[in-house]
């Protein structure tokens, strides 16, 4: 495989459940060394796509290639190069931390000596040295998630697929997991990462694909995605009090979507455009209002996500 050849290449993937089209002509390429974010609301087809990549699900149409070769249920040589960290913790309740890591690593590495080194490294990597002899039921949610990751990456895979690995973990464990993923990526692993936490995706992912209703609705880097939407920065100005006439003048500015007072702060949500901050401050100066702190927050990935996928609640799984 050439170094620039896609690690994952999907063309026109279609997966139907009866009348429901779970994945609708999805195409994507993931280059070596990327951390590729797969975003979407519940039921958008992320996990189905991952299960199709892993051949856990058959699909109706399309092609999936990994490392330049077609992926089939019996592509054991390709599977050997993949690590999976599923959304649910997938470990044996009856085995200890070390036994769990060893048993899953053994599916990939038969040499016992080599495996011992890998298991040691994986346990060190997730910081579970003190819990080696613990059974999963004795571990907290964060430790369980770290064990789940250790079981998926112990064999040093080239491609790691992580499906919401930080669900329901405390901030410390989350930080540990995220920095671990950064280290894996720095060591050369390509990562497919799904999450509902936008700040995680923004921090980790070099490219992002947003899915909705089984389709790819946007893709690119975080900055590229932010550039695609109409939402601009949020401007906050500490003004103490403000009369209604001045507030109306702020609202009437071009690119201002909403403006309101809250606890002495003027909060303005702008559409994308130039000079938004200076326009707001100009109105305040003209009205003779003095102001204190001024904050200007650019649009976040969360804004992108909500604008693209909508704000309506999704009930489907």
């Amino acid at each position, binding site marked *: 495989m050439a170094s620039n050849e896609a690690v994952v290449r999907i063309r026109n993937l279609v997966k139907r*459940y009866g009348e429901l089209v779970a994945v609708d002509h999805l195409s994507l390429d993931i280059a070596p060394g990327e951390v590729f974010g797969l975003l979407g609301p519940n039921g958008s087809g992320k996990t189905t796509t991952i299960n199709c990549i892993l051949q856990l699900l058959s699909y109706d149409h399309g092609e999936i290639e990994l490392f330049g070769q077609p992926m089939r249920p019996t592509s054991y040589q390709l599977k050997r190069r993949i690590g999976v960290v*599923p959304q649910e913790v*997938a470990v044996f309740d009856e085995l200890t931390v070390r036994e769990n890591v060893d*048993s899953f690593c053994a599916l990939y590495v038969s040499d016992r000596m080599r495996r011992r080194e890998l298991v040691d490294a994986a346990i060190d990597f997730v910081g579970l040295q003190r819990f080696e002899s613990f059974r999963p039921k004795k571990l907290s949610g964060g430790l369980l998630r770290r064990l789940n990751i250790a079981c998926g990456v112990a064999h040093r895979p080239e491609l790691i697929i992580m499906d919401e690995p930080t669900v329901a973990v405390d901030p410390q464990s989350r930080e540990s997991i995220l920095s671990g993923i950064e280290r894996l990526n720095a060591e050369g692993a390509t990562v497919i990462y799904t999450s509902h936490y936008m700040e995680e995706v923004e921090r980790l992912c070099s490219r992002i694909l947003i899915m909705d209703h089984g389709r790819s609705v946007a893709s690119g880097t975080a900055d590229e995605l932010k550039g695609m939407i109409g939402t601009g920065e949020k401007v906050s100005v500490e003004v103490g009090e403000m009369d209604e006439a001045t507030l109306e003048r702020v609202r009437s500015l071009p690119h201002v979507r909403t403006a309101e007072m809250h606890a002495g702060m003027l909060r303005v949500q702008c559409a994308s455009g130039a000079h938004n901050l200076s326009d707001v401050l100009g109105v305040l100066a003209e009205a003779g209002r003095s102001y204190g702190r001024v904050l200007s927050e650019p649009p976040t990935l969360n804004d992108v996500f909500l604008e693209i996928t909508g704000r309506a609640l999704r009930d489907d799984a």
Partner: protein
Amino acid sequence: MTTFRTYLEIFLSHRVYIAIYLVMLSLVGVIIGLSAYSGTTGEFQVAPANVAVIDRDGSELSGALTRHVLQGNNQVEVADEKRAIQDAVARDQVSYLLVIPEGWGEGLLDAARRGTQAPNLETYVSYYSGMGRLLDIEVTGYADGLYGMAATLGGSAANVIAATDDAWEGSTQVSMVKQAAAPLPTSIAVAAEFASYPIFSSAMVCIAVLMSSVGRRPVRDRRLASPETARARNLALLGACVTIALVTWAWNFGLEVAVLGGSALAGSPVQLALVGAALLVYALVSASVGFLAGQLGVSENAANALANILGMVMSFLGGAWTGLSLLPDELLAVAHFTPAYWVTLVVEGAASMGEVSAATVLPLMGDLGVCALFGVTAVLVGLVLGRSRSRTQVA
């Protein structure tokens, strides 16, 4: 191989199930076997009864009758008072109490000469056992003998007694029949029949719980995404099921042989081997039922409930709690559809085997074959259901 090892580690981690179903229940079986222990002395012995005789007659005939009653039994002294007689019987101090009325001997000779009815004896029989009733039959028989001899031979009382004793001595002959093969101790057979319960429940629970653990969706998906081949996965599972069956069999049979079957090892090895083979086949059948339950995806709690209920029902229908001969015909008909019934046939056949030959062994092998068919059926149904369930989940 590593998957097989993982399966065994999971099996061994369920120590509570192993302790309860395998160790404790099998010990119960051995204790039941010990309670059924019956040593063989190689000679016939009559069990003695506690008897009392109150001879108010004091004649030669009453003396002969008294001697006859006391022969081979334990004499208990009871005062010739109404209250003492009642207490002795009511408190089970005697199984049989005979009161010979005054003038009985003279009356019997007189009745025999005239051909009229002999005078009655006064007898009391304990309701605690049947020994007194049996003794009463014998006493009545001896008294009838005296009457008969007096009627036919006549003469003195001494002549009548001598003739009656001669006739009586030749009436019952007991001889020991040598079997071609030494019998299997009853305790082994009893324990082996009970073993159907611990073997079934332990094998089924352990395998169903193992399969539930390795078949949990996230774990299953993670393994399916790995380079582990389906063949390796299935072989590991098959190996684990067979190993668990072998462990349950070896523990149960080994314990029975160690505690109860020392003499059978040397005396009746073929019969013992047949019992071992029957339990081995039953362990494999139990494992196959566990495999079926695992393929159905039963939970740990459901596996426990099923193992207990099915284990008890099967062992009951197999005659572990009540002998097959005591089961009503309807239940016996149903029992034919359980593997435990066929195992019991083999165990009982081996236990009562008088001669080891092809003619006696082959029918038992046939019964074992029928038992094995239950296991084959369970595995096939399990495979079909498992495949169908797997398709449903994927869809």
